[in-house]
Structures are given as C-alpha cells and as structure tokens.
C-alpha cells in the first residue's frame, strides 16, 4: 500500500514537472508567427511540390525521412526475429462467413486503389507514401481476416516479401544517393522540378512516395503476418 503511494506521488510529480517545463518554455519563448511562415515563405518552385508537407519531409528533410524508413525496417526485422516460428504447426482454416468475404472482396480493392492514389498524388494533394502503405496493408489484413491467414499467406508469402522489402530499401537508398555521383546537388536534384500542381512535378518526390508506399505496405504486412502466424490464426 505504501509503495503504491510512492508511485502515485512519482507519477504526479512527473506530470507536474513536465507541464511546468512546457508552460515555462512556452511563456519565455512564445512561438513567433513569423517563424511558422519560414517554409511557406520559400518559393513553391524550390521543391515543386504543392503539398508543402511532402515538400518538407521529402526534400528539405530527406535524410530524416530516410532514417525513419530505416527505423521502420529495424522494427519489422525485430518483430520477425523474435516471433519466428519454432515449428510448423498445422493452422486451422478459420475463414469467415460468406457475408464477410463478399464485403471484403468489395472493400479491399477500393483500399488498394486509395493506396495507389495516395502514393501517386502524394505531392499535389493530401496523402503520401506512409499513409498509402498502411492503407494497403490494412486492405490485406481484411483479406486475411475474411479468407483465413493460411490462404492469404500462401499468396503473399512473407519470406519472399521480406526479400522484396530489403530490395526496395536498397533501391530507395541508391536512388537518394545517385545524384551525388552524377554531379548534381546531393539527394534531391536528379529529376526536373516541373510546374507545381502537375502530376509530373516536384522532381523525385513522386518516386520516393511510391517506393516508401511499397516499403511500408510490405513491412506492415510482414508485422501483421508475424503476429498472426505466431498466434496461429487471426
């Protein structure tokens, strides 16, 4: 009982200290409205992306995004390593009823279409590679729930996809590094910028978005498959 009191005090202390710290920093250096216009004040033609967020994280801060993708890959690797199957158990066939299957066969193509839209138009409208990949992975999760993990895994084999994931990561790295070798300005200056608002604008951002979408799709599916297969079924 006494230990519980100490824990409560500790927790309340942490929360109070954090709130005080943030309030203090907020009062002392309140954000200047001019600061928030820093990136917006730069010309649109600098990145060529009408989606300013995509312009920041795939152009000005490309290395940050690259390391993010690496963090994601490490997480997928860790999950797969610790949940690797020790023995091949015979999974029961746990597919859902026909109602669910019909609904899924209608919904998951729509989700895949949405994934492609977000990946291809991520630089001129809301969207982007990460969101697109997660949407596609959830479409595959629907399929796995409706038709059973065994049938889905046979078609989307995690072992082969793990290889594809690493290949996509490598091609992303190479594509980001290529401009440095051909004498263009490092990282982003390989393709022409185009007119902002067009589909073929913003240089390499379109290709980054598509590669990241494929990467996140496969990675998230590998995580889902690792959890489902470890447990037996979804």
């Amino acid at each position, binding site marked *: 009982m006494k230990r519980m009191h100490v*824990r*409560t005090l*500790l*927790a*309340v202390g*942490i*929360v109070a200290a*954090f*709130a005080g710290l*943030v309030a203090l920093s907020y009062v002392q250096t309140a*954000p200047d*409205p001019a600061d*928030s*216009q*820093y*990136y*917006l004040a730069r010309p*649109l*033609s600098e990145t060529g992306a*009408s*989606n*300013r*967020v995509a*312009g*920041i*994280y795939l152009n000005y*801060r490309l290395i*940050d*995004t690259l390391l*993010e*993708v690496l*963090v*994601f890959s*490490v*997480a*997928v690797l*860790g*999950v797969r390593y*610790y*949940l690797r199957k020790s023995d091949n158990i015979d999974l029961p066939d746990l597919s859902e009823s026909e109602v669910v299957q019909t609904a899924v066969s209608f919904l998951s193509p729509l989700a895949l279409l949405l994934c492609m839209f977000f990946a291809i138009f991520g630089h*001129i*409208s*809301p969207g*982007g590679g*990460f969101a697109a990949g997660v949407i596609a992975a959830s479409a595959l999760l629907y399929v796995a729930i409706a038709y059973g993990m065994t049938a889905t895994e046979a078609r989307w084999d995690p072992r082969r996809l793990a290889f594809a994931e690493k290949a996509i990561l490598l091609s992303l790295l190479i594509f980001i590094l290529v401009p440095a070798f051909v004498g263009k300005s490092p990282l982003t200056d390989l393709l022409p910028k185009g*007119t*902002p*608002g067009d589909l073929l604008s913003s240089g390499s951002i379109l290709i980054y978005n598509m590669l990241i979408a494929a990467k996140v799709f496969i990675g998230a599916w590998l*995580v889902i498959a690792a*959890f489902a297969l*470890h447990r037996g079924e979804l």
Partner: protein
Amino acid sequence: MAAIVAFILFGIGILALVLRRDLVIKLLALGMINAASILFFISIGDRQGARSPIQLPGDTAILVDPLPQALVLSAIVVNFAILALALVFVMILCERYHSTDSTRIEQEIAREIDVEETPCL
C-alpha cells in the same frame, strides 16, 4: 484548446504508464502519450482561419505551418516501431511467466534468480 486537451491526454497517459501494472495497458498508455504529443504539435502549427498546406502557384490563402506536420510523421513511424517491438516482448514475457502483470513478472524473475543461486551456496 487542442493544446489543453493534449496536455490532459498526456497526463492521463503518464499516470497510466506509471500506475497501472498490466504491461498491455502500459503500452496503450504509451500510444496515448504519442497521440497527445501529435495533437500538441499539430495545434502549434494552427492559425486562425488557416487552410491545409496544399498550395498552387499564385495561391495566397493563409496556410497552417507545414513543419510540425512533417515532424509528426517521424513520431508516428517511431511510435509504430516501438509499440510493435514492445508488444513482441510483452508476448514473450507472457508466454514465459503466464502473466502480463509487471509486479508478478518481477517476483517470478526474482524467484528464478534465487533458485539459480541456491546450489552455489
């Protein structure tokens, strides 16, 4: 307003993280803390009457600050990575000690260490 909600959510998350003993609840609290920080960042970038930061040439509308939104993307990905890995470790602990109660797992581990050390004495 959104910042205040974010602070409240953050506080609830920290309290649950420290006070609750169930490891799964702790992970949920961690996710809640992450959601609160995302909300806080997005609320910082907001301005009165501003639109989402999608801009066409010649467009002079007031836009929200795109930088916090770009930064939040990292937070989301890292949160996903942390939660997925932590969930795996919770599953391993649960398989070994048949409990997700952190105190009980600690006791079990202490007992295991005692059993291991007894023959040496």
